[in-house]
């Protein structure tokens, strides 16, 4: 990790992300108010009693942002985990076996990629009950194609290396070669892609919640906080600035960490 540590931007970004995750995990202890508690003082500007001000229902935005971070960050992590698992599976199978299986899977990937994914997600979400678990699943299942292409390409190059031949020569079976010899050699670029994918997943969740098809009120996510703020852009700019900035900072930090990892791991 020498090169990563030298990359000051990446280290700073990782620190910020770590603090955000910590804040999200400790949200119930840090938050000064109940994020769902309605207050008498709506649309208050930031002050010492409400650090980020209050929204149109008088709810404390600082507390809502903390709890929103839990949702937004966990959607990012879970959605990316799903897309990496699915992408790994299809990429490994098509790269290793080749032939008809590869052609079939890769054409399926092309089909999936040819849908504008946001419309696909919207269509699916309107049919499902919009809750956080569906959001995670839908984002994960519409974003694995890049990973599978990446994994396939890596597997194609790794499976021709002499140590794979050597593994065959000691009698290792196909699944053993895939899981034990090829998989660890293709993880580096996938870690990088997964990191960058997480930023995309957080953005998609925000967009979905903004359109009202993601996380439903009274639960807060950064996306639906933005939605709530639409009517008050002039009167209460903090309502949109706070969640907007949080999304911006998080996504930027994730990208910086991803770039740092790319340099380190050569993805």
């Amino acid at each position, binding site marked *: 990790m020498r090169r990563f540590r030298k990359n000051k931007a990446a280290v700073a970004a990782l620190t910020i992300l770590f603090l955000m995750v910590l804040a999200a995990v400790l949200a119930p202890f840090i938050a000064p108010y109940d994020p769902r508690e309605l207050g008498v003082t709506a649309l208050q500007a930031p002050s010492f009693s409400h650090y980020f001000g209050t929204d149109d229902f008088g709810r404390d935005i600082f507390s809502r942002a903390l709890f929103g971070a839990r949702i937004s960050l966990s959607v990012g992590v879970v959605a990316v985990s799903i897309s990496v698992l699915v992408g790994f599976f299809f990429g490994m199978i098509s790269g290793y076996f080749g032939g008809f299986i590869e052609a079939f899977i890769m054409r399926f990937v092309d089909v999936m990629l040819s849908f504008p994914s946001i419309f696909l997600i919207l269509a699916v979400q309107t049919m499902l009950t919009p809750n956080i678990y569906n959001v995670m699943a839908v984002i994960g299942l519409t974003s694995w194609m890049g990973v599978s292409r990446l994994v396939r390409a890596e597997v194609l190059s790794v499976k021709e290396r002499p*140590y794979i031949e*050597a593994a065959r020569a*000691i*009698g290792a079976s196909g699944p053993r070669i895939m899981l034990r010899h090829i998989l660890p050699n293709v993880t580096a670029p996938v870690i990088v892609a997964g990191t960058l994918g997480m930023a995309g997943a957080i953005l998609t969740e925000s967009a979905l919640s903004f359109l009202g098809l993601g996380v439903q009120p009274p639960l807060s996510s950064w996306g639906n906080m933005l939605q709530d703020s639409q009517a008050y852009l002039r009167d209460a700019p903090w309502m949109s600035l706070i969640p907007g900035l949080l999304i911006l900072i998080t996504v930027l930090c994730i990208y910086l960490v991803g770039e740092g990892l790319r340099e380190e791991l050569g993805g």
Partner: protein
Amino acid sequence: MNRAKAIEIENLKTYYNCDSGDVVKAVDGVSFGIGKGEFFALTGPSGCGKSTIGFSVMRLIQKPGSIISGKMLMDGYDLMALTEKEMRKVRGARISMIFQDPFTSLNPVLTIGDQVAEAPIVHLNISRVEALEMAESMLKKVGIDEPALRMRQYPHQLSGGQRQRVMIAMAVSCGAELLIADEPTTALDVTTQASIMQLLEGLKAEEGLSVLFITHNIKLAEKYCDRIAVMSRGRIIQRMK
């Protein structure tokens, strides 16, 4: 040649079907036998089919190529008649193979210990801990110093000669009777070559290991091998000693 045979190869033909429609007859009717505890050298110019014979015996010929005909008899069984699953039990347990380039023949992300322990785990139905113990004693046997330390290291921390020793340890860890050595010394310097050859000779003396030694270094073959076959264009054109 009255002694027992480790393997008897009869009229082996391995062809490669090119996309252009041409058929490359890499091995075109080769027959030879290797006695138990014998060093048998296959030599010849590049592209004469000697490595293809090695891969054919392992039944590891890759796609455009295939074994057209021939028999490979081991204890009276024809390796050609085995299913892929049965063949997997032969590879690494009864016949092993080591390769030319020890720098790329070890998996860079696995420790030496894990790689040497793999064949015992696959073939001997023993626990990982037992396999690792076995691996350590194998490393000692092939003359690697500080085996306990090496077990935890990765291939890039070892020299070329050490890596080739590790390959040999992997190959003989399950008591293989036949070792196919595909130019095992070509990538090594002369002194290391000699020490690797001495290691193979030692294994032959101790374990009765038979070796199919594929090389284009005919001097090395003359010095260490009992019999030499010279190949050209897929056929054996001369037999010596």
